[in-house]
């Protein structure tokens, strides 16, 4: 198997800082398999109680938007100001809104 000469696969690591928060991407690491990736993530990214839960996923399993398509991809939301609450005029004498 030629893999032996090369690196272990790359994993992306996501940590939930505390209950009630989302998992957030913190970095990457190499591991031979999923279980080792979780163990390494524990050692590398949570030495000081930075997390209560870890997700790992192989980097090659992630599909990302391309920076080149940034404009066509996100432009459609640019001209829809009516999606924001500040678009609407409400009289000053209307409370709780």
């Amino acid at each position, binding site marked *: 198997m030629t893999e*032996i000469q090369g*690196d272990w696969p790359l994993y992306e690591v996501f940590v939930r800082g505390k209950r009630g928060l989302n998992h957030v991407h913190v*970095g*990457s690491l190499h591991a031979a398999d999923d279980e080792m990736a979780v163990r390494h993530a524990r*050692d*590398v990214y949570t*030495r000081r109680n930075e997390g209560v839960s870890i997700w790992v996923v192989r980097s090659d399993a992630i599909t990302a938007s391309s*920076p080149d398509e940034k404009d066509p991809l996100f432009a459609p939301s640019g001209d829809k100001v009516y999606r924001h609450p500040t678009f609407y005029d409400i009289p000053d004498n209307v409370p709780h809104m």
Partner: protein
Amino acid sequence: MTLAPEADESALQAAFDATIERHDRIEPRDWMPEAYRKTVVRQVAQHAHSEIIGMQPEGNWITRAPSLRRKAILLAKVQDEAGHGLYLYSACETLGVSRMELTEMLINGKQKYSSIFNYPTLSYADVGTIGWLVDGAAICNQVPLCRTSYGPYGRSMIRICKEESFHQRQGYELLATMMRGTDEQREMVQESVNRFWWPALMMFGPPDDDSPNTAQSMAWGIKRNTNDDLRQRMVDMTVPQAEALGVTLPDPELRWNEERQSYDFGSPDWDEFKDVIKGNGPCNKQRIAHRRRAHEDGAWVREAATAFAARTEGDG
């Protein structure tokens, strides 16, 4: 829409320049000039290698730490250095260099690490001095790098800076404890500070008029301060700490300059610095030989884990 390649390239360059101009961050999949990519790879790799090689001088004292408390602290600190190396390798890999290539370049001497780790740790006081002065210098250097223009590098630095403070404080506390001990212990501290002071000041790199890459690195926002600025900051921060500790910094030219509101200080021996960088420091060969041996001795573990992963693949 298809543009001629050169028009395309100049539009990309303009977008890159505008991002730098706004002090915004460059992210991994953004277009960037090849020279920018190379400079970041060189700097981040050198930084990562320094963390990894930096485990050796202090690791030398783990088995001989004088108490369980000190041993646990030293173990945690050396483990942090490994972690810092890994954060930085991870940042470097976002630029398309593999971990294996980085390790090879370190072992083959194609990439450098900080000159400071080529000095030996001759006494236990050196553990304290490294925490105080070497990690102190690293903090001076690293805090501004949290705002470096390459996103993954900056994020690694934020994580590292949070942990460095422990490193510096444990070192200072260790020295302060020895200074409250016997005359012999106080002499050990002074002797250690005498050996490490100048090499610690060399960590900021050559003087500005002899640092050819600084201007471009600052224009790109990779570096945020010049070498001499950071060195001055280090001296100004350290002098009062040395007074509180009761040690003398080995520089006869060191004195307060009222006009500049800063300390004047002497010049490190730059010939020595260049010689250590070239590979002729007291421990260069030993450090690389040790790293190479660890890498080679670990080969069977990497192979076994890979074979195990291949066999169990699909079981889950």
